[in-house]
């Protein structure tokens, strides 16, 4: 398709603003532009040498070998011999020419509903009706536009970066006229977990954002369905806009792999594909990202070196930050090597003008040039379905090209011009003559040797006589030059000032000048040698050797995932937590993640059968072996909010959407023998959120931490927290404010859940009964609106989900059991349950378990009557009793807390140990898998060097699924390794920071408790 184009053949008439009345005479735009004899990179992988590109009316009309392309009609030709032409870049994550999000001031009271006027949705953070095209205003965005152009961009997808559902993005060219620039007014749909400028309370947490986003998908489904059947009673412009954008490419602003994986999970749940805008840390979890199948958008904002001059303040820089500083530049290369498709964005750079040097940094870390180019051109064009408009140099596309004098990302190559929609933006004048070289300067009958050197923008000159340099004041100005010389030693006394013109590509200069005495003199200069062009090394050289990625990416992470082991523990005191009780000098064998054998005098054949695997023997004589400790109630390993808490019920939210696998407390607690924990929602509202039960597989991804097939749980709460007793005067309006109201919240929600459940049952029945005719005519009944909150509560009624309830006072404990009894379910667990001892008989009758603190009290009025004997009393009444932490520090000493059940109330040691092993396993309904040492159960076990209930004992080894995640001796080696790695990186960083650098910052090591209220998900 190498066309011979005649002007008449051009089908479109792209004269701007066709419909507008004209003031004056019309510009017909008949003159074409031809870029000739260039090396044309028509795509990232296809290069045409000596080629021509023709522009007509802002678009590419033809591209092909210069020998073939002929242009008829008026044309301006540019000879680009020796230069390169590239398609200009496309950035698909931008807020170019978008208005700033307006935030309302802080400190206003609670706000339940959106205060946006009009028939829009209820939540301000869900704003699908926002159309970037509507608010796109390039007239005020000149400096941003210049910066993008200077970076090499020709078009961007811009959207209002505010809220969870952000509306649509527009593909715009970087031209000033919005009518010309808007290439695709609705190019994309945009999402995030960040609440943004919304002044509404809900959602306050990451899990709230996640639930809100999912619910919005379900609401939109329902809305579409109801509209189709003409059963819709309300109009919701937000949902209409949402549905309209469903078919557009969807970008999720995740900022990193963490939210990236979360977004992919949401996508899977609602059957929607997201392209993940994933920051610069994807290298930390490549396998998991790859498994999502999502394309990525990567940023190149690599961390700057910290100032590590002071050894004390540099402690504030974490090992993970040091390593990220080193590894982030290799991010794109590693993502590429993993076979994941990605685009690059300038988002996060100080200015988009720095994109090429940022890419070069990536190339030095292994990113191939063609991949980088594709990631800035073809791939983004493809991801937004605009390959017919941008991203390559081909007929019909926008005339968006770059002209360079070398490979585009190389630091020695210059971006000479950026053409946007046929409009030329020049950075370096192609016609500029290179004055550098040596000349014979003839003046006043002398021949002087003149040398011009330096950078093109900053030339300098000198006269050299007998190897002595004499500085010359040199001022070139386009094609004229002036020279000021003071050469008294040569008899040219005083300042001689010459002015002249440059001719013949600088081969000859000539002009006149004034001697010191004011008389005039003729002069000329003839070039003796061409400027020296250094042979550029265009291959990217790999940067320094890089350290390993750690799993998880935090202190004490492992370079390699530890493997399952087959271990024979010999001669231990084994606390089985089974009926067999405590076995002295017994053996335990673990194999394939399970406990294979327990007992005295085991022999290989009876344990392994005929095929004996390789295994290690651990001499456990004098030591104690217990089941892994299980914490019924923790708040570690969760991120961006532990309480949604903005409504009396937030049953729709789940901690599973905010699990943080990179929390060092997992490791610290492994060192205390903990192997499983339930991460609970906080206690800010009567119906909190769904929990996550995790195994402490240190290094696994958030999803892999989840205890597979565990029964689902939800957190409830009673008392002071839910009635907002200690929240200050602003919070006196949310129902409930008394324990009386708390009861009504439950009844109201459970009746609604029952009705909801019935509606779905009816619907399913109707569907089964529906006539073939209805099916044929597509008049099947509309499904009820799927409601994540009521669905969760209905699961409780159907005993498919279990309640663990934060509780203190006996009256409210009693109340909740009545609610449950009357609604036909059982409260599985009362957690905290500090006045449980007052109603132990009632709890036993109801069938509830209790997970308590050993000895906490007196921190709130409702724990005035809390006693450390509580656990013993509950246990004595036949209640399954556990001690939990609710505290990241205490959690690593739960065995000692169990000992307090011996001290306070005389529980036997074996039974006390069950308070932190088998009993919490029962409460979590995972006792078929964990909680005791029994053949066939998971090999979650701890080897202690002393009596497991003693303050003096230490965990020597902790296993989860037969994999050793903690070892006292390996811990020492790990510390050494960290010290070494740290020292190496600090040296490298010190060298890189060159006396400056960022001030170190201390991360928020924030430990959540039940009543932690934060708003950290904006």
């Amino acid at each position, binding site marked *: 398709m190498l066309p011979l184009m005649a002007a008449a053949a051009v089908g479109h008439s792209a004269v701007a603003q066709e419909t507008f009345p004209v003031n004056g005479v019309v510009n017909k735009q008949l003159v074409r532009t031809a870029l000739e004899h260039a090396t044309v990179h028509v795509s990232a992988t296809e290069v045409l040498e000596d080629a021509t590109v023709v522009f007509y009316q802002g678009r590419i009309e033809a591209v092909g070998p210069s020998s073939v392309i002929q242009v008829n009609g008026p044309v301006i030709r540019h000879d680009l011999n020796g230069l390169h032409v590239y398609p200009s870049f496309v950035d698909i994550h931008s807020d170019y020419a978008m208005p700033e999000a307006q935030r309302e001031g802080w400190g206003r009271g609670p706000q339940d509903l959106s205060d946006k006027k009009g028939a829009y949705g209820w939540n301000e953070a869900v704003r699908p009706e926002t159309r970037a095209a509507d608010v796109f205003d390039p007239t005020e965005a000149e400096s941003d536009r210049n910066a993008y152009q200077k970076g090499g961009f020709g078009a961007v997808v811009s959207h209002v970066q505010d809220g969870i559902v952000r509306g649509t993005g527009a593909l715009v060219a970087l031209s000033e006229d919005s009518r010309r620039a808007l290439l695709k007014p609705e190019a994309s749909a945009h999402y995030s977990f960040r609440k943004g400028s919304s002044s509404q309370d809900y959602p306050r947490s990451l899990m709230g954002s996640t639930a809100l986003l999912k619910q919005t998908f379900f609401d939109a489904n329902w809305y579409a369905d109801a509209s189709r059947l003409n059963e819709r009673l309300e109009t919701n412009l937000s949902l209409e806009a949402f549905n309209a954008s469903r078919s557009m490419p969807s970008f999720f602003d995740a900022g990193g792999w963490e939210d990236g994986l979360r977004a992919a999970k949401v996508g899977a749940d609602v059957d929607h594909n997201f392209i993940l805008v994933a920051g610069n840390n994807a290298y930390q979890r490549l396998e998991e990202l790859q498994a999502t199948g999502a394309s990525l958008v990567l940023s190149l904002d690599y961390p700057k070196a910290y100032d590590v001059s002071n050894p004390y303040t540099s402690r504030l820089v974490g090992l993970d930050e040091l390593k990220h500083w080193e590894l982030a530049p290799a991010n794109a290369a590693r993502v590429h090597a993993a076979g994941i498709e990605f685009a690059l964005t300038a988002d996060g750079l100080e200015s988009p003008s720095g994109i090429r040097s940022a890419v070069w940094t990536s190339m030095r870390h292994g990113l191939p040039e063609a991949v980088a180019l594709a990631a800035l051109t073809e791939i983004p064009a493809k991801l937004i379905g605009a390959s017919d408009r941008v991203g390559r140099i081909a007929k019909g596309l926008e005339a968006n090209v770059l002209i360079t004098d070398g490979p585009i990302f190389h630091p020695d190559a210059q971006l000479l011009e950026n053409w946007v929609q046929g409009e030329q933006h020049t950075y370096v004048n192609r016609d500029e003559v290179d004055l550098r070289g040596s000349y014979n300067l003839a003046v006043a009958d002398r021949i002087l040797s003149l040398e011009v050197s330096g950078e093109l923008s900053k030339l300098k000159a000198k006269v050299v006589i007998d190897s002595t340099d004499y500085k010359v004041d040199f001022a070139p100005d386009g094609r004229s030059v002036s020279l000021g010389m003071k050469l008294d030693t040569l008899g040219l006394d005083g300042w001689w000032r010459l002015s002249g013109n440059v001719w013949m590509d600088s081969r000859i200069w000539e002009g006149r000048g004034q001697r010191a005495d004011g008389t005039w003199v003729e002069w000329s200069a003839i070039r003796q040698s061409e400027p020296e062009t250094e042979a550029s090394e265009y291959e990217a050289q790999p940067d320094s050797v890089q350290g390993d990625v750690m799993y998880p990416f935090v202190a004490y992470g492992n370079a390699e995932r530890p493997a399952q082991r087959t271990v024979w523990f010999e001669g231990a005191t084994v606390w089985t937590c089974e009926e067999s009780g405590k076995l002295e000098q017994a053996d335990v064998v673990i194999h394939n993640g399970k406990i294979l054998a327990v007992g005295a005098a085991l022999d290989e054949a009876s344990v392994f059968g005929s095929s004996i695997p390789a295994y290690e023997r651990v001499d456990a004589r004098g030591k104690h072996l217990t089941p892994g400790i299980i914490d019924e109630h923790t708040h570690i390993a969760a991120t961006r909010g532990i309480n949604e808490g903005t409504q009396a019920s937030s049953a729709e939210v789940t901690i599973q959407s905010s699990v943080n696998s990179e929390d*060092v407390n997992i490791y610290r607690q492994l060192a205390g023998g903990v192997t499983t924990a339930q991460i609970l929602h906080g206690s800010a509202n009567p119906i909190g959120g769904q929990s996550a039960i995790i195994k402490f597989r240190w290094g696994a991804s958030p999803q892999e931490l989840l205890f597979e097939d565990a029964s689902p749980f939800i957190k409830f709460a009673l008392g002071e927290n839910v009635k907002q007793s200690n929240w200050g005067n602003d919070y006196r309006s949310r129902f409930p404010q008394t324990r009386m109201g708390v009861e009504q919240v439950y009844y109201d929600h459970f009746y609604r859940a029952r009705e909801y459940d019935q509606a779905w049952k009816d619907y399913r029945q109707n569907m089964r009964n529906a006539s073939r005719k209805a099916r044929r005519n597509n008049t099947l009944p509309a499904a009820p609106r799927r409601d994540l909150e009521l669905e969760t509560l209905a699961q409780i009624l159907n005993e498919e989900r279990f309640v663990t309830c934060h509780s203190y006072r006996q009256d409210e404990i009693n109340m909740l059991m009545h609610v449950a009894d009357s609604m036909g379910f059982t409260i599985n667990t009362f957690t905290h349950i500090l006045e449980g*001892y007052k109603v132990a008989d009632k709890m036993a009758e109801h069938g509830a378990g209790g997970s308590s603190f050993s000895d906490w009290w*007196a921190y709130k009025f409702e724990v005035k009557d809390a006693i450390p004997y509580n656990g013993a009393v509950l246990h004595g009444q036949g209640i399954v009793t556990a001690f939990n932490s609710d505290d990241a520090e205490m959690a690593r000493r739960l065995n000692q807390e169990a000992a307090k059940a011996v*001290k306070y109330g005389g529980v036997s040691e074996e039974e006390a140990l069950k308070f932190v092993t088998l009993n919490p396993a029962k409460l979590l309904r995972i006792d078929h898998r964990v909680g005791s040492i029994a053949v066939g159960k998971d090999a979650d076990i701890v080897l202690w060097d002393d009596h497991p209930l003693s303050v003096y004992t230490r965990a020597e080894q902790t296993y989860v699924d037969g994999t050793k995640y903690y070892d006292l001796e390996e811990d020492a080696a790990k510390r050494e390794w960290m010290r070494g790695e740290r020292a190496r990186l600090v040296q490298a960083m010190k060298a890189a920071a060159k006396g400056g650098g960022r001030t170190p910052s201390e991360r928020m090591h924030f430990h959540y408790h039940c009543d932690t209220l934060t708003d950290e998900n904006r």
Partner: protein
Amino acid sequence: MNYKALLTLVVGAGMAVAAAAQPTPAPDQKESILILGGTAHLGTGDALENAAIGLRDGKIDYVGFARTVDRARYDRVIEANGRHIYPGFIAPNSTLGLQEIGAVRATRDDAEVGTFKPHVRSIIAFNTDSEVTPTVRSNGVLMGQITPRGGVISGSSAFVHFDGWNWEDAALKTVDGIHLNWPVTHHRHWQDGKIDIRKRKTYDQERHEIQRFFSEAKAYAEAGEPSSTAVRDLRQEAMRGLFDGTLRLYVHANDVRQITEAVHFKREMGIAHLVIVGGTDAPAVADLLRDNNVPVMVKRVHSLPRFAEDDVDAPFRLAKELEDEGVLFCLQNAGGMEHMGVRNLPFYAGTAHAYGLTYEQAVQSITLNAAKIIGVDAFCGSLETGKDATLFISEGDALDMRTNYVTEAFIQGRAIDLDNRQRQLYRKFQAKYGAPILD
């Protein structure tokens, strides 16, 4: 457990329906008492097996061996064979008695308003009727340094024992020192889930204000006692003792830089006794502390390391590191849940033993060392003749929660009632259920 079964009979029968009330303060010691047998942990770093400890007129009048003591000299003998005897444990830097229910403002008297308030005295608000205190002393913690919070200078602390009708009875030293919270050198700036720490712009100013406050107080002190009619400055009057060595300056500081500056400040100001409270980074500046005779009240042993890559057991080992460096230290438990949590002080010492201290060093870290640092070792802190007979007997090792069980406790020879509201509630409800009392 045998002793618990025994108590079931004794306590369960007699006190099951005792009215829920605070234990009555014990009457003065009338009869002399000899504790015979058992292991006496002296608090000095030594222990005696098969010991004999004599209590007379509120003082210890004998410390020796059971086989040599003259039993006839005592009115009453307590057989302690197989049991352990300890000096009363001391809880430094505690808000016990200053607050009752953490979340109820009306019950909190631990932090007065203001910035420099050396004149504010904690002893005034020490509530001897707190329901928390009896639960603390029943674990062997019998004395404490009651310390105010807040501001730059929080006020003065008092040294008390945990038995008395009123604060005058409880006070062993109404003012033992002034508490200064050294300003943090970096300010915290919230940003995207991170806290940026930068050097605080106001740090130099705040340090200057402290300097000035002390300089003025020193000048005031050097001018001598004002006449009865002269104008008095209450704040500067309260500071007087810092410069003549009668009061200690307790500087609450954890970071290297804070600690270093505090030690330099002590020298500049000519302050006789400086104590660092907290001291997370103290091992890093151990030489400085040792050379300047600055002891440390070590931050709560059961706490988390500061940085992710810190040794997992760093807080457990801090005491041992200071011991190795020859810095005098004791344990304390300031932090969350501090007033009710101080009953776990013995177990902090247990952990410090697990992580390096010898057993007797661990005992010392909550007895004599604390007394020395607070300046009350002349009359308490160890089992030595002539000191207050403030001590207790435990069935087992009192530093281990598995075995800590206090059977008798004496404060200045007075046998105190070890009952508390929590025990009363326990008995009340076990009785309701017809269940045995195993306490």
